[in-house]
């Protein structure tokens, strides 16, 4: 699953890829006419809206592409770089950049395109930009407070608006279509031409506008690949077709104190719950993340049997089914919940009055097992914890 770097393509190739996508970037910008300063500022005086058309189309194409790849689980959207949000500096910086845009007639990327085809004003803009960046660095101590104010992290706009990503994409697409039509009218008026909304080829135009809308609507109405898999699993489980093997609490305790290394105990609750209490040797993979391909190798270890448990018996069963779906055949689910396990071994181990022989053995076993499991856990804690694959966000941005 993408991003291809670092797992599928080695990070060493990153600079070569940067160069290649740069060529594509420069080619697209120059072909669009972004090497011409008068074409760029036309946006702000109403005589040429090329920038709006290209910029909006590009942004929406990429946005829907990311959405679609995420929907099909071809791209892990939880680790791609999302620019962090610092509102005060974003707004101040943006306004200064806007001023620089109308004064200088370029933005950094377009100035490079202009410079590449021999525009002297492009080189002058690059020189000025480098000087501006240098000045920012020199005055950083005075700007640091504004720069770091109100850090919100990598927030997404749809989270702020409280809507689904696909809804936001649909909204943007519709806004873009209206904007393209409206600016066409303005352009004609400013340039003193007769106003035509559909000047010919209206069929092609309608088709071009319909494609992104249809794509987003499809994303909205179809279940994502993850949802689809879960639905299928649940349907199978409901049909009784695929019953996960259950393991009894006492049996698990027995196995743990005798051969814990043969078991891969996985806690599928939240990290907070895991922190409060977990069964000895257990690692934590929340149920929502279990589907993540990063864990597939861990789930398919041949020597170890997976034992899942959660805060409800259903959680453990679901986890077990996910593991099976991804090819593991020996996964088992704990018959009791985490809370029940804790009670059995750590809370209710007092001997009942007049115990039968059986009860006596059981209570003694549980008391001993509790002690022993604690020991194993302590010993393991001193050593390195079992693998927990670290999934880090990609670094990016302009700084």
């Amino acid at each position: 699953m993408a991003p291809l770097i670092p797992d599928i393509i080695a990070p060493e190739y990153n600079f070569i890829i940067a160069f290649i996508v740069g060529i594509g970037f420069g080619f697209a910008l120059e072909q669009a006419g972004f090497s011409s300063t008068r074409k760029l500022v036309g946006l702000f005086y109403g005589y040429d809206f090329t920038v709006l058309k290209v910029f909006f189309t590009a942004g929406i194409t990429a946005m829907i592409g990311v959405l679609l790849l995420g929907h099909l689980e071809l791209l892990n959207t939880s680790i791609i770089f999302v620019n962090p949000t610092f509102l005060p500096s974003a707004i101040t910086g943006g306004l200064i950049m806007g001023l620089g845009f109308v004064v200088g007639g370029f933005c950094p990327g377009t100035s490079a395109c202009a410079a590449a085809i021999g525009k002297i004003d492009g080189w002058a803009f690059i020189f000025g930009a480098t000087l501006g960046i240098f000045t920012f660095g020199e005055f950083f101590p005075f700007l640091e407070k504004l720069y770091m104010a109100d850090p919100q992290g990598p927030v997404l706009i749809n989270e702020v608006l409280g809507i689904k990503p696909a809804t936001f994409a649909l909204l943007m697409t519709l806004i873009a279509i209206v904007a393209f039509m409206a600016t066409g009218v303005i352009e004609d008026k400013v340039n003193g031409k007769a106003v035509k909304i559909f000047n010919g080829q209206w069929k092609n135009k309608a088709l071009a506008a319909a494609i992104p809308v249809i794509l987003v609507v499809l994303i909205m109405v179809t279940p994502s690949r993850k949802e689809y898999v879960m639905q299928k699993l649940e349907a199978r489980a409901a049909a009784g077709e695929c019953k996960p093997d259950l393991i009894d609490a006492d049996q698990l305790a027995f196995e743990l104190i005798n051969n814990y290394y043969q078991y891969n105990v996985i806690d599928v609750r939240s990290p907070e719950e895991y922190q409060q209490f977990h069964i000895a040797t257990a690692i934590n993979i929340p149920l929502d993340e279990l589907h993540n391909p990063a864990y597939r190798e861990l789930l398919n270890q041949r020597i170890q049997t997976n034992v899942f448990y959660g805060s409800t018996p259903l959680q453990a069963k679901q986890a077990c089914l996910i593991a099976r779906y991804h090819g593991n055949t020996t996964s088992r689910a704990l018959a009791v919940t985490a809370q029940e396990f804790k009670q059995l071994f750590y809370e209710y181990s007092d001997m009942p009055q007049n115990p039968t022989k059986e009860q006596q053995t059981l209570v003694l076993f549980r008391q001993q097992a509790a002690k022993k499991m604690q020991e194993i856990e302590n010993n393991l804690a001193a050593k390195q914890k079992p693998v927990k694959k670290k999934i880090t966000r990609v670094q990016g941005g302009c700084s």
Partner: protein
Amino acid sequence: MNKKNGYMNPYLAGVLLGFVLLTTIYITGRGLGASGAMKSVAVSAVKAAAPEHYSNTPYYRSYAADHPQGPMKSWLVFEMLGVLVGAFFSGTLSGRIGLKLEKGPGVTNVGRLAGAIAGGFLFGFGSQLGRGCTSGSALSGMAVMSYGGIVTMVAIFGGAYAFAWFFRKMWISR
């Protein structure tokens, strides 16, 4: 291609640009950028001209820590080298290569150069405050639906519209 001016249809160019950005995200997990490469140049200049100042200032120290192989060994520097090549290729293809100074009607050469340098200065300064420019913050931010990126985009274009009237003499004759 539009025969009138030799430029590509803007929507087609937009789709092409969108696919370049999408490919970048798919392969590397990050978006495109531009101002970061200029930052590498600025930082390298400081390193070469005033090595002591470079190693004493916390701002450059933290930059050096992020770029252990030196300021020029940065993803965006390589990407921008590609941009220069790609733009040159495109310009050659459409016959737009040549030394030229483009300016609004009635603007002197010196006036245009001063404007470009001053505008560049402001854009460069603002891009540092806004954590990226039109490419890295606005366009790439929009693709991944970053709140900060979209706010920056609105601020850039909103700001440009707000200031456009004051600088109209630089671009249009009216």
